[in-house]
């Protein structure tokens, strides 16, 4: 039930500005904490919120590529869930703290589990190029962090089932010929919503309907009568606090504007998708270089600081001698090519 879900309660936001606010806040918080690390100009050393966005956009593309090439092939809902996790994670964290390439793999791994797509960790890291032992360590050590940052809300309502529902409804109640031919368009629309913040702003049924309407318009079909006659005919009774018979005149007006508003929503979603611009490779490369310097070395598996911290953690736990090499992360050479999902 989406109406009672944590997704609606905690992870659906009013507007884009609100999301932006979260991201800027995380960015400034990080810079405040690490201000003494910067050798010169803060702007030069740390990533700006805009650069962070660009970087994450690039990694969202990597995420889709990774999922597409995943062996065995994964169902759509895993991709959708992984995207939701990725976006939610970076609402409350900055990529300077946790490198997106590590979080990306962890998101997919947790999504596989939650969506009951059963792959073992060894099967999973077989899809990652580079040092597999290291990738295993990174994914497993980040798994709990990710779940914690998601506030343990792991159920994701994807728009796929609502789309099936709309197609069944259209087949039953409208006279459209062969609605199944909309499917390719619907799928490509949903794929492009992944790159937007739609899943943080709209309900899955709204995204689903927007996809169906978009596909219909591409196929030169008109579903307007279906939408107004069936979906919004009951809007009048549904509106809370407006069943007052005395003010039925006003009520009617409200309904109209409400319906207009909802329609506006669908065009908003479509606009969101349309306005999406893929980041430029050159810019992203420059940002990544910058990130390598300013990222939190505490969370960088290649850094001495991280190894030291890990070693201390292990020795604290069961009094192992510090030079015990039974864990992987500490003895991996400084090979930065691990987890290069992008290539």
């Amino acid at each position, binding site marked *: 039930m989406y*109406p009672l879900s944590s997704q609606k309660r905690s992870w*659906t936001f009013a507007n884009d500005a609100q999301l932006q606010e979260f991201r800027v806040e995380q960015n400034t918080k990080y810079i405040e904490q690490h201000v003494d690390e910067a050798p010169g100009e803060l702007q030069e050393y740390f990533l700006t919120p805009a650069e962070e966005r660009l970087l994450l956009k690039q990694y969202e593309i990597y995420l889709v590529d990774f999922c597409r090439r995943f062996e065995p092939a994964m169902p759509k809902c895993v991709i959708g869930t992984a995207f939701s996790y990725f976006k939610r994670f970076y609402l409350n964290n900055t990529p300077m703290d946790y490198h997106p390439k590590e979080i990306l793999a962890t998101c997919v791994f947790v999504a596989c589990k939650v969506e009951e797509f059963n792959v073992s960790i060894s099967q999973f890291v077989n899809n990652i190029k580079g040092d597999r032992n290291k990738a295993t360590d990174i994914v497993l050590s980040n798994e709990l962090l990710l779940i914690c940052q998601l506030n343990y809300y792991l159920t994701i309502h994807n728009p796929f089932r609502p789309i099936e*529902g709309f197609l069944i409804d259209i087949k039953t109640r409208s006279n459209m010929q062969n609605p199944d031919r909309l499917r390719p368009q619907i799928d490509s629309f949903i794929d492009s919503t992944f790159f937007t913040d739609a899943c943080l702003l709209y309900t899955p*049924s709204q995204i689903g309907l927007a996809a169906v309407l978009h596909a219909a318009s591409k196929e030169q079909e008109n579903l307007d009568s279906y939408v107004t006659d069936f979906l919004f005919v009951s809007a009048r009774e549904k509106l809370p606090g407006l069943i007052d018979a005395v003010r039925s005149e006003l009520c009617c007006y409200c309904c109209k504007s409400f319906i207009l508003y909802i329609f506006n929503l669908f065009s908003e979603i479509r606009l969101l998708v349309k306005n999406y611009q893929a980041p430029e490779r050159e810019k992203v490369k420059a940002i990544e270089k910058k990130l390598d310097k300013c990222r939190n070395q505490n969370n960088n598996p290649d850094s001495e600081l991280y190894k030291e911290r890990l070693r201390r953690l292990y020795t604290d736990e069961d009094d192992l001698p510090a030079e015990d090499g039974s864990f992987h992360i500490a003895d991996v050479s400084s090979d930065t090519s691990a987890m290069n999902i992008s290539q």
Partner: protein
Amino acid sequence: MEEQACPRCKTTKYRNPSLKLMVNVCGHTLCESCVDMLFLKGSGACPECMVPLRRNNFRVQLFEDPMVEKEVDIRRRILRDYNKREEDFATLEEFNDYLEEIEDIVYNLCNNIEIIETNKRIEAYKRDNREVIQRNKTRVGRDEYALEELLELEKAQEEARKKELDELETEHKKKKARDKQALIEELMYSGKDAAQIVTEFAEKAEKQREEEKQLPPPKNMNEFSTGIKFGQTTDPTLLPAPLSEEGPLFVYEPLIPYIDGPTPPEASDIKSMGYITHMRQETPQENAGGFTAALACQRALQEALQCLYYTPNTGLGAAL
């Protein structure tokens, strides 16, 4: 599991089922026959660590790991002197420190760490606390004595009860014999009908048997020999909790789903309105699990229509 073997003669439990492994203070094992042979004179050196040992200090090894054996031995020796109790300390903290010290000493002695220093420490402790140790020793003795007394008492009670039962038994037998005799005499000398007399006696016997059944049951024990009470006691603090008053009865209220969208079709409408014709028929396997096409169809439709009217500010504020 590795088989137990004597480290000197390499005999194993398999080859000699009566193999008995012995252990001395140093914690090294030897089999019984090796002990007999090596310690013929009553004392000698351990073949492994060359520590001088006495024959009568050898004990049968109870634990598989000889180190455990050694630790038990050391612990017993240490605790003979370190016999303070919690009451002897002002605070729990001090008592805990004291316990920790004991553990330190035992550990050091077991693992041959700073043996000389540790022994010095023990000596110093003995000197400083001679009085307390002596007092506690006698106290332990007193405690043990009291326990023994209790056991004695219990034994006596048990015996008395046994005797009582025996007496009852003999009484019972005698009575039976008397009854039988009476029956025979009655049959011999009275002029009544024989069958009637037999039934009369049988009834009487039956009655008596029932009476016997109601003999008082043995006195309920409600105390262990250690003085710990068990079973039902009249201790007012342990009375069963009074029954809590039952709350109001459960009243079923039908679930009204919050939809915030067009009303989805009812379960009955799925078929009648033709939604089902657009679904794949469920396979027999799926049906066996309780899944039907109608369920899946209804779920998809519900999810499609839920929250279709959702606006972030939940209400009309944003819409108007």
